[in-house]
């Protein structure tokens, strides 16, 4: 009987695996629900409820399912449950519908085989659904939980019935959630945890105090500055890794005027020289050393090393060169600089506020007066959606697919609500070549040709300074020495890799 207690920053907003495509939820629920496949310690796709998968015909994928799997309530798992989970995930109220954007329909072949028919070839489909979790149709129907919608009293938001390694024992939202090991799990358990308690602790200092005073075994994340302290405390260790999330600056590309500026009637950011000037003004090494305490990688791309399509030669940054920056501004017609509205979240990314402050100071040194406005993330997105910024800070992680095309679809393609493309491209960066390349990249099966197109996009991206990539955010977890666990680069934490000694 090994107890494991851990603390994180926030609580999963729902126990429904389709309700929110948010890391916190998916990571947590991955302990309760299984998907068709799962990612290993190195992010590689591994069989889970699907034993194998392969393209079927030209436009589809076939999944052969594992037999003898039962849900926590004892019901057995069949292809029908997969079909149900697909319907549910694409249905009303689901937040994970975009994972299936390429799917036309699904067909149950037999009890343990299912086909997903795509609208056009989609080589990445298995990657894209790596975080998709399977629910039991009978249980959902019996409890009126056939949709993931939020507003009705939805049973599935507080109750679970997965096939995963842990069962939900009790849950008090925002206070504590207790899981117990599922003895009937289909896989042999690597973990030795019989009971696991999760507590969300919002305040950094309190969270780290909880670890250091032995009240929890593991916390995620810890503030960067406390790494040394934890390592030095004795009995604790920090697990550091590189997350797949890239932090960047976004800029207004389309509007003809800035929101808050001493230059009116023009949008300097439309001038690529100005965007380059911003790029050159940023001393990323200093930010990494002082704000990120040396625990981040400088980024030249919107994807991190290890992502599909990443190439080192494109990952170089424009050098820090304030003089060049001033020169570029002068060339663009702003020898005295200009001012702009710089928006920044203060509780979304690691040290986001401090990063923005540092950037503001650096921009000030070349003459750009950024009016920095920091705000809690829940109010941040609406502002970005309302186009209420001149420059903003964004972090992007290529989700389950870990593919270079992911940020292209969301961040680089011209916004197109119809096709659900460019939906996070708040600055409305637009480049015809990229727009034509993105669909091709998405459906291209040949790896070489695909990489060429990706490189082409990355080239344009950098020439145009569509975004100013900053760094790849680190993952900093801390645990007590008596537990072993695995940090996955997507910041998912899996209980089934935990051993308590």
């Amino acid at each position: 009987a090994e107890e494991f207690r851990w603390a994180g920053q926030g609580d999963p907003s729902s126990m429904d695996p389709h309700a929110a495509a948010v890391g916190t939820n998916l990571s947590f629920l991955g302990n309760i629900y299984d998907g068709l496949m799962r990612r290993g310690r190195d992010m590689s796709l591994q069989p889970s409820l699907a034993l194998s998968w392969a393209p079927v015909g030209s436009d589809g994928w076939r999944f052969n399912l594992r037999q003898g799997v039962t849900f926590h309530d004892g019901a057995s798992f069949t292809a029908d449950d997969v079909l149900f989970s697909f319907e549910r995930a694409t249905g009303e109220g689901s937040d994970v519908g975009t994972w299936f954007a390429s799917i036309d329909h699904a067909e149950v072949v037999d009890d343990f085989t299912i086909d997903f028919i795509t609208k056009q070839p989609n080589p990445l489909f298995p990657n894209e659904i790596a975080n998709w979790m399977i629910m039991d149709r009978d249980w959902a129907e019996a409890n009126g939980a056939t949709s993931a919608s939020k507003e009705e009293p939805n049973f599935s938001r507080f109750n679970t019935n997965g096939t995963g390694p842990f069962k939900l024992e009790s849950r008090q939202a925002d206070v504590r959630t207790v899981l117990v090991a599922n003895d009937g799990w289909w896989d042999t358990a690597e973990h030795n945890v019989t009971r696991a308690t999760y507590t969300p602790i919002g305040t950094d200092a309190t969270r780290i105090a909880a670890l250091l005073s032995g009240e929890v075994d593991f916390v995620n994340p810890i503030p960067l500055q406390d790494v040394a302290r934890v390592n030095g405390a004795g009995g604790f260790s920090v697990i550091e890794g590189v997350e797949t999330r890239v932090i960047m600056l976004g800029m207004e590309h389309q509007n003809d005027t800035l929101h808050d500026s001493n230059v009116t009637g023009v949008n300097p950011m439309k001038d690529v020289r100005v965007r380059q000037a911003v790029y050159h003004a940023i001393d990323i090494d200093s930010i990494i050393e002082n704000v990120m305490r040396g625990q981040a990688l400088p980024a030249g791309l919107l994807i991190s090393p290890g992502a599909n399509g990443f190439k080192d030669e494109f990952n170089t940054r424009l050098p820090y060169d304030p003089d060049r920056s001033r020169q570029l501004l002068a060339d663009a017609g702003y020898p005295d600089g200009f001012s702009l509205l710089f928006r920044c979240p203060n509780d979304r990314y690691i040290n986001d506020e401090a990063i923005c402050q540092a950037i503001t100071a650096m921009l000030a040194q070349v003459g750009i007066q950024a009016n920095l406005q920091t705000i809690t993330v829940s109010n941040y997105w609406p502002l970005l959606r309302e186009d209420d910024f001149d420059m903003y800070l964004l972090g992007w992680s290529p989700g389950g697919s870990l593919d270079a095309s992911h940020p292209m679809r969301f961040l680089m393609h011209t916004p197109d609500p119809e096709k659900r493309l460019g939906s996070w491209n708040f600055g409305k960066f637009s480049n015809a070549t990229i727009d034509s390349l993105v669909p091709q990249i998405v459906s291209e099966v040949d790896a070489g040709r695909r990489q060429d197109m990706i490189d082409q996009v990355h080239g344009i991206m950098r020439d145009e300074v569509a975004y100013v990539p900053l760094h790849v955010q680190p993952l900093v977890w801390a645990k007590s020495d008596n537990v072993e666990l695995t940090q996955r680069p997507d910041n998912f934490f899996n209980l089934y890799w935990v051993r308590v000694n």
Partner: protein
Amino acid sequence: MTDTNTRLLYRIYDSDIGYSFRKSRIAVAATIVTLIYFLAAIFAPLVAPTNPYDLASLNLSDAFTPPAWVEGGSSKFLIGADDQGRDLLSAIIFGARMSLLVGFASTFLAFVIGVSVGLVAGFRGGMVDAILMRIADIQLSFPAILVALLIDGVARSVMPSDMHDTIALWVLIFSIGISGWVNFARTVRGSCMVERGKEYVQAARVIGIKSTTIMVRHLLPNVMGPVLVIATIQLAVAILLEAALSFLGVGMPLTKPSLGTLINTGQNFLYSGEWWITIFPGVALAILVLAVNLVGDWMRDALNPKLR
């Protein structure tokens, strides 16, 4: 003129209150400390070694410089630098300026509202009084911090967002001020009810002086004693409240930090050994509030005839 001034000064010096002040070493010390804060706040740009608002002057590589006497410290940063490479001493001086500004302005607002309401309620009595005092009751059932949080929240969502930092100061002043008027109103009302029954008020009414004139010229000066005490206490409360709001993330923005904001940011570096970033602003705040409270305390005793 100067002659009357010096005479007035001497009168104050020589009065009972002046004497009790001189006799109380604590009160003198507290007043001096408060004055130092005030002067430092008023003349912050002259006093502070650097201008912490001038972002262009910041150098990120100065970040986390410890106090000068600690190993690794630099004489450039007497009590260290914060996470942005800002001179902490300057930040504290400017932070105290913000805290005092918020404290003063909000206390003044509470004072104006409270005293007006109290005067009207106490002088008019009857229905007007009943209604005003019920409003005060309702206000009281919203503790100050809630009121401030609410107003702040509302202001932030109603105002255009790029004005947030610009208006943050005003929002703070308004919300803290609004949450503090009841004490003034109740006290003034109480004293007013006593005073309005006194015959000097009736004497004024007999010669047909207008009510508003009576309130302002006759009553107001006579209810000011306890009001001053409350004002001092409210000043301390307002400074603390501002700090608390900053801690909860709705106070002054990081670009114009108050002491509370500084503590809040610094708190993140307590465990990593960069204690000075939070401890110094914390101590600065505590000393300021303590000094103000001490002055208030002394004043309460000195002005309370029942206690001397």
